[in-house]
């Protein structure tokens, strides 16, 4: 992903909607290459599992993992675990946006807000959210509240930082032109600053979600009870169920991938890439 300066020069790029046969062929080649990489990695795993050097219970074969996964999907337990985790991550992520985007904007617009919050943000951001789980458990108990707060903590800072940078990078010429056309403060905000900062805001959402997704699984391991993808992995160690762990990991990876590609990928293609404010790598 490349940010480009607002030169406005005609880049001659195809926009995302145009079906270009050469492009389609290239994307199929990319999928095939990815499949080969993943296939080889799985085959290596399978080979090691089948040598018998390790106990089957600790290093289950891929068919065993797939069977466990299907069993958990069919009895609905995997769905429940996923729903709990998604509820927590989306709730925390939503809160992070509600707090992070306005705060980032205020920090960029008002020097005093920036001076007050910047040291706080800089000091809190490097603390791993996972290191706060025991403390938050003491304060908020075991369950949804603690995990949601952990997710919120992990997701807020990238949201604040990117929004703050985005608003500061809005081209002053847009503000001047909009002002000359009679935009008041309110209109300037919604019609110029927000869309103008959108490449950064979308990048912030992406980074936030990624951090939220990593945080929720970690937090659930110790701060959740009975439900959640993190909890099920941690619980499975009591019974040496490596197959359950690996099946849950596959689901965690899949959901994370789906959000990254489907949700944020389409958001980006539908907005900033369509507007030429961001474009994909040349080759």
């Amino acid at each position: 992903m490349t940010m480009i300066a607002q030169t406005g020069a005609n880049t001659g790029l195809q926009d995302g909607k145009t079906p270009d046969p050469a492009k389609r062929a290239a994307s199929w080649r990319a999928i095939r290459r990815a499949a080969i990489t993943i296939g080889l990695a799985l085959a290596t795993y399978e080979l090691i599992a089948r040598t018998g050097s390790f106990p089957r219970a600790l290093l289950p074969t891929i068919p065993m993992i797939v069977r466990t996964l299907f069993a958990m999907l069919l009895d609905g337990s995997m769905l429940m675990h996923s729903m709990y985790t998604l509820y927590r991550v989306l709730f925390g992520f939503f809160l992070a946006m509600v707090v992070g985007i306005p705060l980032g904007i205020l920090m960029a617009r008002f020097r005093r807000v920036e001076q007050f919050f910047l040291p706080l943000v800089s000091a809190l951001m490097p603390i791993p959210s996972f290191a706060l789980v025991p403390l938050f458990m003491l304060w908020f108990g075991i369950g949804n509240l603690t995990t949601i707060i952990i997710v919120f903590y992990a997701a807020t800072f990238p949201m604040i930082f990117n929004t703050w940078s985005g608003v500061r990078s809005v081209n002053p010429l847009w503000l001047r032109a909009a002002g000359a056309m009679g935009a008041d403060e309110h209109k300037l905000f919604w019609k110029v600053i927000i869309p103008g900062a959108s490449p950064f805001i979308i990048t912030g959402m992406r980074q936030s979600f990624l951090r939220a997704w990593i945080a929720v699984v970690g937090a659930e391991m110790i701060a959740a009870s009975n439900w959640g993808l993190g909890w099920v992995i941690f619980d499975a160690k009591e019974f040496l169920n490596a197959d359950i762990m690996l099946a849950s990991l596959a689901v965690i990876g899949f959901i994370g991938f789906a959000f990254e590609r489907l949700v944020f990928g389409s958001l980006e293609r539908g907005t900033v890439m369509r507007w030429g404010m961001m474009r994909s790598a040349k080759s």
Partner: protein
Amino acid sequence: MPLIEVDDVSLAYDTPAGRVQGVLGATFNMEESEFLCLVGPSGCGKSTLLNIIAGFLTPTGGEIRIGGKKVSGHGMDRGVVFQDFAQLFPWRTALGNVAFGLEMKGMGKEEREEIALQQLKLVKLEKFANSYPHHLSGGMQQRVAIARALAYNPAVLLMDEPFAALDAMTRDDMQRLLADVWKTTGKTIIYVTHNVAEAVYLADRVIVMTPHPGTVKAEIPIMLPRPRDPLSLEFLEHQKQLLNYLGQGTSKAA
């Protein structure tokens, strides 16, 4: 009464090297539908003066009146076109950009899009109404910017070297197009340029400015019939006259 009165306007600002007189005592009037060019080398205060008229800068002395009313801050009686192509909003289509001012006025969607489309027709871009700026060439983007500044029907159009970043051939086309637009709309235009030939091609009257401090040195009416032929003898005579005022007439040919 003239439409625009620039009355003894000055702007001084402080730099580490001391106080700089960007514009000193600029005075001239403009009639309605007049095409005025401000010409001068860089640093002569022509862009500064335009920015004062636009209301982006506040003069430290004197005042500007439009229709007898003193200018303070920017207002919708003036439309502005900048040099930089990036002035368009990349997240809006050509039509969306042109409709922006009308939207700010609170006009309904259907009505403002109809007006915006007419404005795009005026600059011959109606086919590109739904294109985003990054799919348009530099010349096309500047045409959208002109349509955008005209769409809400300001009394004056202010243009700050709008074609300076274009290649020479495109610039010629754009000058012809602007002359047509001016003829069609009868708009009052103030146009800043450092290009003497451009000024002679477009203007009814040229104001020559010189730097240190930025002052009005001469006012030269250009009475040539339109459309003007840049290779005619009279055209070249005017160019030569302007260059003499700028102190560039003897040694260098333009």
